[in-house]
């Protein structure tokens, strides 16, 4: 029963990401990418979730209230999305089915590798210290029906919010899902979210491989090699290690989805036919990433500047640099908030006083 429920939540994740992402990446009568839509939708989902969560959390309202608000919002987004984008979705599904049929050996290989990688991360045991915070935070929130008020390590009540983690509301979303679906926190985090992340990462690799190689044999070779590199480039610090062993953590998402999708947007910018609203998508990705892990505050601005600044100079288009800098504002803001907290400028209490 738990496994069945986990599979349903996994599928629901992708439906929701598609619904959220369609507002940014789907344009009628213009070619659009399902992978890009789902990935942008993933970040839009978490960005909006943070916007809803922070006021609820800082005014000491229960997790169950957040769950109700979020459920209503998700249903609304889904309904609007189906109404607005139902036809493009149907056309895309037909296009994907045709593509799979026409290139069945390529897709058979891709699906085999993706399923193997997903099953591997879903069924392996790995001990990590950080799970003691992230996963225990989910169980603690669900048990206490409050948001980040109790210390996940011990269960004790905290006098003030731990601001190092509190703006990264990614794990609060897991708490909401667990409360609504009654799925155990360990299954939601280490099975459902791990699988979600692994499938998304593989989709991005396929997208990149096909971007570089029209010949599908070449594309498949490149795709296989990216997964091989992820299996081999292992030390406790590499993004590949986070992907393969700590898949569900926010850091893993930053290192393996955010950085890659920003690179994909750069690839699309460099190509002559880049999609409309590219910088809006970049903004959504940056904002969503800032709510997933505080690691984003350091890594994302650096990558955006490293990719987009030289391009703006080379093409003599300063507006590209300005747009890119606007996109990283969420990270800059979060960095300031965090630095001021660490330097002891303020504290946010977990009880009104």
């Amino acid at each position: 029963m738990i496994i069945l429920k986990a599979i349903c939540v996994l599928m629901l994740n992708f439906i929701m990401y598609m619904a959220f992402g369609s507002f940014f990446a789907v344009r009628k009568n213009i070619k659009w990418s399902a992978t890009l839509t789902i990935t942008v939708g993933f970040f839009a989902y978490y960005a909006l979730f943070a916007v809803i969560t922070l006021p609820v959390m800082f005014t000491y309202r229960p997790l169950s209230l957040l769950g109700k608000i979020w459920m209503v919002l998700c249903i609304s987004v889904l309904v609007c999305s189906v109404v607005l984008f139902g036809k493009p979705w149907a056309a895309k599904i037909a296009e994907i089915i045709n593509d799979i049929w026409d290139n069945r050996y390529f897709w058979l290989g891709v699906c085999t590798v993706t399923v193997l990688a997903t099953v591997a991360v879903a069924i392996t045991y790995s001990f990590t210290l950080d799970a003691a915070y992230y996963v225990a935070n989910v169980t603690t929130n669900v048990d206490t029906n409050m948001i980040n008020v109790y210390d996940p390590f011990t269960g004790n009540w905290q006098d003030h919010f731990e601001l190092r983690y509190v703006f990264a509301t990614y794990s609060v979303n897991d708490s909401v899902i667990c409360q609504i679906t009654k799925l155990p926190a360990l299954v939601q985090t280490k099975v459902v979210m791990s699988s979600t992340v692994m499938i998304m990462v593989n989709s991005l690799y396929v997208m990149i491989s096909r971007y570089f190689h029209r010949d599908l044999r070449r594309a498949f070779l490149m795709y296989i090699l990216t997964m091989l590199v992820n299996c081999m480039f292992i030390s406790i610090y590499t993004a590949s290690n986070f992907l393969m062993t700590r898949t569900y953590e926010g850091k893993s998402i930053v290192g393996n989805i955010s950085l890659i999708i920003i690179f994909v947007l750069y690839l699309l910018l460099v190509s002559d036919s880049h999609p409309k609203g590219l910088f809006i998508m970049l903004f959504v990705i940056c904002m969503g990433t800032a709510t997933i892990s505080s690691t984003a505050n350091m890594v994302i601005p650096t990558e955006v500047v490293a990719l987009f600044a030289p391009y703006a100079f080379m093409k003599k288009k300063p507006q590209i640099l300005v747009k890119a800098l606007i996109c990283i504002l969420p990270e800059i803001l979060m960095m300031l908030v965090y630095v001021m907290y660490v330097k002891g400028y303020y504290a946010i209490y977990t009880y009104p006083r």
Partner: protein
Amino acid sequence: MGVNVFENGIGYLTKCLSLYNSGTGYFVMYLFAVLYILIKGERREKEIFLPGTAVLLVTVFNPVVPLILDKIFDVNNEYYRLFWIAPVVIIVPYVITVIVCEMPKGRARSLVAFLLALALLFGGNFVYAKGFDLAENIYKIPDELIEISEMIHEDSPNEYSKAYFEYEYNMEIRQYDPKMLLTVDREDYLYAMNYSYTDEMISDEERPVNRILALLVRNQRVEEEAFVDSLEKTGTEYIVLTAGHPQIPFIRRAGLYEIGRIGTKIIFKYDLSDPSVFELVDYSNVEHRFSYRRLK
């Protein structure tokens, strides 16, 4: 990460990179891939891969940058995450694909493909090199820990129980069971795993947890009375130890008794003289307003 900017100065970056790579050759392959594109790449490939790499070389991979950043943030343990920006997992496979596929079919191509495959396989550390550790259950924690949790809750008359666990179980139990309160938090445990306690720390009345950790982790000498007092002050009712732990005779003498054994673990109980029942803070009637304090 265990490398300090202040101590290592300009050498921090090299040490950080060395730890990051941990003997793998993938970063070298990344540099070779960039070099390949610089020499043989087409205009579009150069436009995609080279500008970003150049910026990374003068920023992230510049030994002076961590020194500057460290003045603003504590980057000691997190600087390595900036290395993730280098697209190793994209550019290395891309260049290998191009090299292999653009060579004419024949022995030379097979040999090059074979050598590159060897470089990828032997230039890294396989993620499952130490074995594929299959989870015992869907919760991905040991079965033993689940049984221990059940045993403690069956024994305890209260909804919440407070316990001391050994390191790994201490870090895992609350991921499964939020009704298990813990005597020791993560930072205290990490300290105890790495450092001994001074006499001053052991006698610190404000930190009874020091005595518990000094005895049960560091095997340092602690008075029986002081240990019992620490259990009382921290409200610890249960202690879970591996059978064969050197302090088992001590804790039996201190008045703890065994309530059961599961697998390799023994669960001990201490009867608190004044047991208090843990209750959640009541938020039902609070004013729902933002409350913060300016400290500076």
